[in-house]
């Protein structure tokens, strides 16, 4: 499929909108990274926080700022740039939607941050009702979510416009993928928005005295798992579409890429119970059903892995590689745009395996709420996803600012990723090991009254601090590269790499663009997985819980 807009640069005005998102995202990286460093130092037992700052306060900062702010802002910026690049410049109306969303999200972030700094909201980003934060904290996070909907509306409007102007044509792949992720995000965030607007906010304002904990947690985790796929799918966009172009190869199959994204849309949402496997009040048969649905994302994940390595191998062989693994040598290892996300892909192998353990119904008992889980998502989101975002930044930031990635910055980018991999091996490895011994997550340094078991965890906590320190050096390097690419790199033209499918003649089936069908199945699956247990939680609810401020 020939796309006339594929050669164009992203329009300056759309570029500015995307860059605004990236400035907030990288500010979040700086603050959240510092909070993370302090946490690992405290938990090593060798360091105490100054000035009465609480461990759980910086833990809240770390989670909110990296889990919600860095990710959402980066993803929205990237998806807007990708849509503008592949479907054409946004209309004024679409761009205004983008800016409105951006400012709402930013205002919400500032509001939530102020409440955390005032120690009015040390409830972590997962809320943990009946711990009760200040109402402004809940309002702030609501603004972030509503802002992201309006921001996403820009992408949906652009997609609809493209389809109107190109009847009977499959949409550009990057636009299609941005759209799937945006729709998945909107369907998922309805859960967290519901618990905040209908339960936590009236309760924190004193309109109602108690809150139904089972319902609140179920609504939160209805959102909490698709959240991780919302982080992952933009990385998959880069892996499927950008990386093939960077290495000089082709997309293995346009249609299969679309199919895997549709499968993620269907199976990312009706799975929240696998975060609640250890909870009372939910029948284990319903938990098991959602475990099965959880595991269905294994299928698109296997398709993705196949497709990526097929692209790499076909490229290597087209360059004359022989033997079973000869193609590995032909890959452009000196190019940060490839190597940095590649390290992320490799991290996804142990990360995915650990995830299978976590979601495995009764096996979850061994690791639930231990620091193993923290180790797990520092491989998935904090390595696979984040390194891919860094790899994207190395061409996208200069593309948008009219600069270039110099050889020196390219080299620094690779060094950054290697430092990240080393730091994470220490930190995440030690977290996995300590978790298997029972060390809890989200806990400050404690000797638990001199218990022998707790003493076994401490050497691993020291290793986590060493890893955390190495990772913080990585963050400083990344911020240095970001500032260089945004303000100081030499002026020039940096390519926005968009891959082409290996089989240009094969048009993607139009059924993939049938949103009535896919959103319909999505809703049916959600209703199937949630209706009966949710009615149970309401009908058999215990007396509600009063709010507590225990920090």
């Amino acid at each position, binding site marked *: 499929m020939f796309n006339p807009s594929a050669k164009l640069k992203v329009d300056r005005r759309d570029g500015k909108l995307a860059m605004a998102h990236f400035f907030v995202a990288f500010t979040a990286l700086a603050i959240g990274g510092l909070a993370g460093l302090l946490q690992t130092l405290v938990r090593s037992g060798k360091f105490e926080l100054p000035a009465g700052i609480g461990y*759980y306060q910086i833990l809240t900062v770390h989670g909110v700022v990296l889990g919600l702010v860095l990710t959402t802002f980066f993803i929205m910026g990237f998806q807007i740039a990708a849509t503008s690049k592949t479907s054409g410049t946004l209309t004024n109306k679409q761009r205004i939607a983008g800016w409105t969303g951006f400012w709402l999200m930013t205002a919400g972030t500032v509001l939530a941050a102020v409440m955390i700094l005032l120690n009015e909201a040390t409830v972590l980003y997962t809320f943990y009702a009946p711990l009760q934060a200040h109402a402004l904290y809940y309002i702030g996070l609501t603004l972030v979510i509503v802002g992201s909907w309006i921001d996403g509306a820009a992408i949906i409007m652009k997609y609809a416009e493209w389809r109107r102007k190109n009847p009977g044509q499959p949409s550009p792949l990057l636009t299609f993928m941005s759209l799937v992720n945006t729709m998945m995000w909107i369907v998922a965030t309805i859960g967290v928005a519901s618990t905040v607007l209908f339960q936590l906010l009236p309760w924190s304002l004193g309109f109602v005295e108690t809150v139904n904990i089972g319902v609140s947690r179920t609504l939160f985790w209805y959102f909490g798992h698709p959240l991780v796929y919302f982080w992952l799918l933009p990385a998959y966009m880069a892996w499927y579409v950008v990386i093939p172009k960077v290495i000089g190869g082709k997309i293995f199959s346009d249609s299969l890429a679309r199919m895997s994204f549709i499968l993620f849309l269907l199976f990312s949402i009706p799975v929240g119970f696998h975060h609640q496997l250890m909870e009372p009040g939910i029948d284990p048969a319903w938990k098991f059903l959602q*475990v099965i649905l959880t595991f269905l994302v294994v299928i698109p994940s296997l398709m993705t892995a196949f497709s990526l390595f097929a692209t790499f191998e076909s490229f290597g062989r087209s360059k004359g590689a022989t033997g079973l693994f000869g193609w590995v040598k032909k890959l452009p290892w000196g190019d940060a745009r490839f190597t940095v996300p590649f390290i992320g892909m490799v991290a996804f192998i142990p990360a995915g395996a650990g995830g299978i353990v976590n979601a495995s119904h009764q096996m979850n008992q061994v690791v639930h709420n231990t620091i193993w889980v923290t180790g797990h998502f520092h491989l998935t989101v904090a390595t696979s996803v984040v390194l891919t975002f860094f790899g994207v930044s190395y061409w996208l930031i200069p593309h948008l600012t009219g600069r270039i990635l110099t050889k020196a910055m390219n080299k620094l980018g690779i060094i950054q990723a290697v430092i990240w991999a080393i730091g994470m091996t220490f930190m995440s490895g030690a977290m996995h090991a300590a978790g298997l011994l029972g060390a809890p997550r989200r806990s400050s340094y404690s000797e638990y009254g001199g218990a022998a078991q707790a003493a076994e965890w401490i050497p691993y906590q020291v290793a986590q601090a060493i890893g955390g320190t190495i990772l913080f050096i990585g963050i400083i390097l990344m911020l240095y590269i970001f500032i260089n690419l945004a303000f100081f790199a030499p002026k020039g033209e940096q390519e926005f790499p968009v891959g082409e499918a290996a089989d240009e003649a094969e048009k993607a089936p139009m059924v993939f663009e049938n949103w009535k069908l896919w959103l319909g199945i999505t809703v049916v699956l959600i209703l199937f997985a949630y209706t009966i247990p949710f009615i149970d939680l309401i009908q058999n609810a215990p007396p509600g819980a009063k709010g507590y401020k225990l920090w």
Partner: protein
Amino acid sequence: MHMHKFEKAWLTFGIGSLLVFLTVLGVSAFYLGNQPPSCLATIDPEKVDTTAPFNEPGLKKVEGKDWDYELVYVASAFSYSPAEVEVPYGAKVKIIATTKDVVHGFEVAGSNINMMLEPGYISEHVTTFDKTGEYLIVCNEYCGVGHHMMSSKIKVVE
């Protein structure tokens, strides 16, 4: 839509493994009874101290049940009652626990005993203590400023 024959083989193998895996989990859960703790009983969180069995936390011998003892815990910020308990080696014990205030965790470190305690709900787990020694119980769900001080102890004795 065309699919490469290697991809077909890869997906067949992958989906086949997935089915075997899920069957193993399912047989373990529904045939062998290894379900995660999912007690459906509720309680008024304001009246925990006056509701049986939580009015008397601790270990109790029981007759005519599938287990020999019941071990009752009441959690509240930031402690468990009882703070320490001795369990005879080899005893089959049903642990019954709840919370008086916020959400807490109940994890016996180094074992498979791991459950959430939520206000208004009762959590249960049946286990056999077949190794002597001292086991640390920790709260593994964030509950406030003293979360990391919240613990208890089980001593399994001959």
